Structure formats: C-alpha cells, structure tokens
C-alpha cells in the first residue's frame, strides 16, 4: 500500500497531474452554472468525440475512390460485422451533434453569455458552427450515392454564381472540370483531415477561454453587465459561491452525456444507417436529389425565392448572417443578460427557428417539384369521368396523356406546382382556359405547339365539367347568349356534372 502511494506521488510529481487538474477540470465555476441549461456545450464535444471514434472505425473499411466508395458502403452495410451499426452511429452522432450544438448556441444567446468579457468565446463558437456544417456537407459527400453526386452538382452550380471567379471556384471545388475521381478524394481530405483538425484547434481555444474568462454565471434579471465592474463582480461570485467544476458542477453534464450516448446508440439501433441511395451513376437521370436534413431549408429557399433574389440568398444573406453573429458581442456586449429582460432576443430565436422549421418542412415535402410519374401512375378518379360526353372523355384522356398531372392534381393526386384543377370551371371561362393552355403564363409553359386545335377543344370540354354540382361554371359576360334575360339563358343545356 505504502509502495503504491509512493509510486502515485512520484508520478504526480513528475507529470504534474494534480496541478493540471486544479487549473483545468477542477477550476472554480459559479455554483449557478451547474444547471441543466449548461449541459449542451459538453454534450456537443461528446458528440464530436463519438464522431472521431466511429469515423476512424469506418475508415478501416471505407474506400475514398469514386469507383469503390459506394460498393464499400454496401459492404459496410451488409457484409462487415457491425458495419451497418457503426455507420448508423456515425450518422446519428452527426444528427445529435448538429441538434445539440444548436441548443447550445440558443442557450448561450438567450443567457447573454456572449457579452463582455466572453466575446472571443462566442466568436470561436461561431467558427465551430460553420466548421460543423462543413463536416455535415462533406460527410454527405462521403456517402457517395446519387444524392451526393447531384449534391456536388448543386454545390458547383452555386459556386458558379460567384461573380468573376465562379469558374475557378467550380474547378477548385470539384478538383477538376467535372465531378470525377479527384472530387471525392478532395472531400475526403476535408472531412477526415482538414476540418476535424480545425475543429480540434478551435475547440481547444474555446475551452481555454472557458478557463481564462470563466463560465457565464446563471443570469439574474436586473443584473446588467458593466465593463467597469463585471470582472470584480465575477470574482466575488466565485469567491462566495464558487465550486470546483469537477466534481461539484459536472454532475448534470455527466447524466446528460449518458443520455446522449444512449440516445445515439438507440436511434442507430432503431432507425439504422442512412443510405447509400442509388449508385453515383450520372446516367441514371431518373432520380430525385435531396440534401440531408441540415440543408433542406436552404434547398427550399432556393425553390421559393424569386430569381433576382437568388444571388442575395446564396451569398449576401449568409455573409450578413455570419457578420451579424461575429459582430453580436460588440453590438450588445453589455447590459441585461437574462432572457426575461431581453424580449427581442427571445423573438429572434423564435423567428429563426420558425423560419428554419417551415423551410425544412417545405424542403421535405417540396410541393414545387413536378410529380414525374403521376401521368402514368395516378388515374383520373372515376367521379371525374362518370357521365361525360365522348368529347369530354377524349379531353380527360388528353389531360392524362399530355402529362398535365405532373403539375396539376385531380382528386388530391398529382403535382402541386400548378393549382389543383378539381374546380377549375368555377374560376376560368372556356376562353381563358384555351388562352392559358396555348400561351401559358406565370409558371405554366405554353402548349400551343404540342396540342392540335381538336385536342385543345376536347381538353377544354373536359375541364369545363370540373366544378361541384352546387356551383355553376363561370361564364363570359361578353358572350351574347350570356347577356340574355335569365329565364332564356336557363334554357342553355347545363354542362355541369357531379364531381364528387
């Protein structure tokens, strides 16, 4: 026993372990920082460590070659013992990392932790946010499937829009004039060496700043930060109610860490790995590329903004956002910290979360995308053809064959790019329909060259029947027959039929 103690003391003397512990893990923090709200930072770091470990394991098998990557992922999923599970843990680790990092950022923002004297802690955190998103994008490319291939195409097309140096940026991003062998190697280097290296370096700075500038005390309403007095106040808080981080403030971090690990393992077990989707063969044009969850909001924004705003949304808005995040501790570096006294801060968080949430939902459902198979896969409901004349039935067939339902739905099936046409006869007159079909307008292409006059005639005859029994079709007031007295006009044969 005595000998063991001597060895331990010798080791501590030579390695300076207890001194290192006292100045790092054992540093004093305000007791109020031992809160459930303060667990997200350590949990994000935990996710990063899990990503490094699982990523290193996957790299034992994964081959970063355009020719082999997809096959090696299939091998991991189906042949390598527990390969599917490691891929699933890596994927869910990244989902958890982005989610918990977001919570950490919201907490830091709402608790005013970015204010004096922790400006650089916040700015290094902003860098870590950007690097983590970089890991998410390059990681998506590692899963080298159809989505990754066309995702790279989208990335290159975005780069090409940078004024003046667009072409060079595309070349630099793809490591060549086109997505090819070197492109994947480039993204592998970024995902495995360069970005993780930067994250490790900046996390070190981030943690060092937590030690030197202290962790934010739990803010109390009515205790604003003043540059002249804050350092003294913080020293007093530490003196009065300071506790060593280990073991007296880390308890909740530890419990949350275990929840996160079990959560990642559980999600990976239940939901399994993601992809790979179809092979990265560009000749398969029958594909529907979608980015991963994190970028669905951007994907949706690009479908929804008008053309003239695209350059703004792609380049100016992100630049402004990053500039705002970096400038934030200098814009409001002092004053109230408590969210109870900062309604604008709370509103900003709610607003941004709502925007991201709605855009992500829209990106998931993407109502602007044509339903490429509705014309062959979704027959016109029987109610819409029952009791129709031969001409109208011919029109229904044309409606189907000319692929109108790629963009227009009937009975809830079909694309949502254009309006649903179930009640179109109550909105448009015959002449308006003819004009719209032949010339197009708004988002609708012109079909004048693709439809014969007889086909247009039949199509419009069918569309004129699309109205509920209780609502008559609209009529053109400049037609003489429509200006006749009501009782005479009633004699006209009714064209309306029951839709449902």
């Amino acid at each position, binding site marked *: 026993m005595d000998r063991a103690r001597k060895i331990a003391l010798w080791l501590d003397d030579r390695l300076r372990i207890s001194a290192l512990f006292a100045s790092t893990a054992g540093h004093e923090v305000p007791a109020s920082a031992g809160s459930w709200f303060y667990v997200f930072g350590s949990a994000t770091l935990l996710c990063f460590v899990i990503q490094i470990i699982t990523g290193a394991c996957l790299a034992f098998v994964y081959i970063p070659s355009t020719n082999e990557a997809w096959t090696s992922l299939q091998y991991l999923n189906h042949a390598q013992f527990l390969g599917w599970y490691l891929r699933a843990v890596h994927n869910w680790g990244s989902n958890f990392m982005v989610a918990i990092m977001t919570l950490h950022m919201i907490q830091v923002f709402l608790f005013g932790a970015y204010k004096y004297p922790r400006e650089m802690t916040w700015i290094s955190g902003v860098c870590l946010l950007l690097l983590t998103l970089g890991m998410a994008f390059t990681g998506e490319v590692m899963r080298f499937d159809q989505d990754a291939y066309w995702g790279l195409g989208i990335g290159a097309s975005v780069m090409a829009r940078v004024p003046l140096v667009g072409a060079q940026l595309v070349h630099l991003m793809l490591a060549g*004039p086109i997505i090819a062998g070197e492109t994947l190697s480039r993204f592998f280097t970024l995902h495995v060496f360069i970005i993780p290296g930067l994250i490790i370096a900046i996390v070190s700075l981030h943690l060092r700043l937590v030690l030197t500038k202290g962790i934010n005390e739990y803010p109390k309403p009515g205790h604003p930060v003043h540059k002249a007095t804050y350092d003294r106040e913080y020293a007093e808080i530490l003196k009065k109610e300071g506790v060593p981080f280990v073991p007296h403030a880390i308890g909740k971090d530890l419990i949350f860490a275990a929840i996160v690990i079990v959560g990642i393992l559980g999600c990976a077990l239940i939901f399994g790995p993601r992809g790979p989707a179809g092979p990265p063969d560009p000749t398969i044009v029958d*594909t529907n590329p979608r980015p991963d969850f994190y970028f669905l909001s951007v994907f949706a924004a690009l479908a929804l903004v008008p053309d003239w705003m695209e350059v703004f949304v792609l380049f100016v808005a992100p630049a402004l956002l990053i500039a705002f995040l970096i400038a934030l501790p200098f814009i409001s570096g002092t004053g109230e910290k408590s969210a109870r006294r900062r309604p604008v801060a709370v509103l900003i968080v709610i607003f941004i979360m709502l925007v991201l949430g709605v855009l992500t939902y829209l990106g998931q459902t993407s109502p602007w995308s*044509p339903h490429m198979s509705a014309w062959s896969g979704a027959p016109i409901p029987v109610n819409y053809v029952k009791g129709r004349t031969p001409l109208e039935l011919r029109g229904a067939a044309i409606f189907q064959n000319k692929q109108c339902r790629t963009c227009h739905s009937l009975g809830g099936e079909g694309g949502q790019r254009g309006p649903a046409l179930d009640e179109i006869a109550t909105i448009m007159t015959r002449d308006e329909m003819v004009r719209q079909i032949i010339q197009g307008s708004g988002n609708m292409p012109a079909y004048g060259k693709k439809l014969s006059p007889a086909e247009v005639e039949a199509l419009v005859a069918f569309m004129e029947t699309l109205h509920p029994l209780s609502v008559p079709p609209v009529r053109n007031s400049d037609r003489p027959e429509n200006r006749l007295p009501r009782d005479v006009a009633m004699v006209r044969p009714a064209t309306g039929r029951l839709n449902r």
Partner: protein
Amino acid sequence: MHEPSSEAEKVKESNPPSRRDWLFAAGLAVNVAAGVLLAIPLVGFVFSSFVQRKDPRDWIPLGRLDEFPEGKTRIANYRNPYTRPWDGQTANIPCWVRHIQGNQFQVFAVNCTHLGCPVRWFQESGLFMCPCHGGVYYEDGARASGPPPRGLFQYTYKVENGQLWIKGGEMPTLANPA
C-alpha cells in the same frame, strides 16, 4: 535624431543590438525563406487548377446518326474525356440529343441551369422538367418556367463519318456554359 522619450527606449538605445538579437532576427528570416520554399510546391499542388488552364474538352462520338430518329429527343451517354483510372461509373455522362432534321441537332446537357440537377424529357408534353426545384424547358431547350435563369446548356456538335460528335468534358454551369 529625436530625444529618447520613454524609459524603455533609453534602455534600447543604450544597448546596441546584441549577438542574440541578431541570431533571432536571422533565424526568423531564414525560416520565412524556408517557409516560402515549402509553400510554393504545396500551394502549386493544391491550386494546380489555377496554374494549368488547358481546355479539358474534347470531341466525343455519341453514336451513328440513325440512332437518333428525326423529330425525336433521345438520351445518349458518353465517357467523359477528362478521366482518372478510378473514376468508375461517375465518368459516364448523359446528354439529351434532339434530332431536328437532316444534320441539324441540338445536344443539351442534363444539368438544369438553375442548380445543376438532371432534367428529364417528357415526350408527350414536349418538356424537360427538373426534379429539384421544378424548372421547365421547352423541347428546343428554351426556358419555359420555374427558377432557371436561362435555357438548357448546349454542347457544340458536328456530324462526321455518319456519327454525331459533341465537344464535352466539363460540367456546364452559369460561369462556364458548355
């Protein structure tokens, strides 16, 4: 000569540069030089695409003319001329060939001009449609609707020895329309 103002400057002026100072300055200087020597090949390697500005495109045969019936639009695949031995299937590039009549063709890149997703041809409605953001083009490649800023990118083509050739090898983008 100005009057020494602070205490530090007085000390500095009274102590002429020592051998240690000289060694430190010289050490910095030779390391800056060595660093530049190291950086030249590194930067040149990573940014080689800026140094070598050779046209990556080349003439590629797409097939015999009778593979493309007049008045029809067909898909054709070619092997990208800019290739690496480990490219695999990613070097097989599709394109849409529209045979107008005689020796008149239009060869469209599959990449949507909006953000590069692959457009699909719909014979019956005579439209190209993009699955990503719903861009639509007419059969002559002109923009019909949706977010694309222009019509489809077209390859330069020629008819030689009964074959259709295109000049390809580069991903067409707004900055580099094929």
